[in-house]
């Protein structure tokens, strides 16, 4: 299986274990910990798998955000929990922390052009991430409203 080659498997494993740590730091308990951490691995796997199909990182981020938001929304429906609690953790591998760091590094070294480029790129990644997630959550919200049978019960995520 191609999926279990180290280039795909290892980063996803690292993302998963790292997310378990962050899940605890946000006071998530019990079974929700592995579920939310798995979302992080799912997002990163989609990001890696989409690399040959899409030519730039921003599009990859967008696709990965859609996949991980869909995962979180489905899990939220199954577990009857707010989707936010899963999203909060699953998003971590995709948060452009590296972008913030390299932007700062260019600024410190006085490389203005690279600083601006990296800064814009980081903002674009954050935007793609937010847009992908919002697309899925809004679609899900409309879908629930459409299928609403118990007006007061089913509107919560």
């Amino acid at each position, binding site marked *: 299986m191609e999926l279990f080659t180290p280039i795909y498997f290892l980063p996803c494993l*690292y993302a998963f274990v790292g997310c378990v*740590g962050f899940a*605890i*730091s946000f*006071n998530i308990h019990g079974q929700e910990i592995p579920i939310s951490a798995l979302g992080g691995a799912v997002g990163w796997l989609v990001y890696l798998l989409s690399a040959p199909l899409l030519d730039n990182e921003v599009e990859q981020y967008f696709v990965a955000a859609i996949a991980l938001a869909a995962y979180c929304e489905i899990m939220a429906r199954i577990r009857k929990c*707010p989707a*936010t609690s899963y999203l909060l953790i699953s998003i971590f591998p995709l948060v452009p922390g590296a972008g913030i*760091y390299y932007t700062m590094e260019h600024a410190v070294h006085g490389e203005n052009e690279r600083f601006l480029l990296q800064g814009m790129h980081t903002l674009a990644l954050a935007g793609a991430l937010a847009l992908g997630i919002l697309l899925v959550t809004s679609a899900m919200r409309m879908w629930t409203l459409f299928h609403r049978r118990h007006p007061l019960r089913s509107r919560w995520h």
Partner: protein
Amino acid sequence: MLIDPDQLLDLTSELGFRLMCTGAEIYRVEESIQYVLRAYGVHTGEVFAIPNCVIVSLTDPSGHASTRVRRIPAHGTDISLLESYNEFCREITHTPIPVPDALARMDAIQTRHFVYPFPVLLLAYLVGGGFYSLFFGGTLRDGLCGAVCGVAIGLCLWVMDYLRANSFIRTLAGGAVAALCALVLVDTGLGDNMDFITIGALMILVPGIAFTNALRDIMAGDLISGTNKAVEALLIATAIALGTGFVLSAAQRL
């Protein structure tokens, strides 16, 4: 159910206050309060929430209007508490119980609530920092150094919370400590790549979902909440960059 408007205001404003303090999104707080008001038979109630304030107002049958304003202090995110209050809210919306009972149940949720002890939290930072250093491409030794930096950030955040520093200073200090640790570890030859170690540990501080939530509010037309949170997310990102940048440029001079 006929109910005293003052009591209902107490309940809804307290619920809104507590939900906000767990880090719930604005729309969740506003919707929850609206559903509770409706469940108790009040259709003339209004609620307005922004990140640091909740206002609930309602008019009783005689035409007299009352309002409660609650200011929201600086708070973190506690997902398990958020889920408990969300569940509680669903229940009282489904079957309204007398207000004093509802208030007592909220207090019970607060006292029964379990928070991980500090050593477990440090362990979580250790795992988080270490594995994200590996994730960003670091070697095994970078992973170990990232774990050390994660713990250093955890300790630094604890000191900052003890000193009641605001979130900007808190993040700035966290970033500086992470960069300083990484610098020392790489200098002594324990770590290989300064950047992977720092980035891994910095993941503890990044704004994460805050930017997404801000954009959600803006798109929904809650411009005050949205811009408020977007600025907050940018400010935290800037604090991270400033904290690490300060240490890096100081190291360059030496």
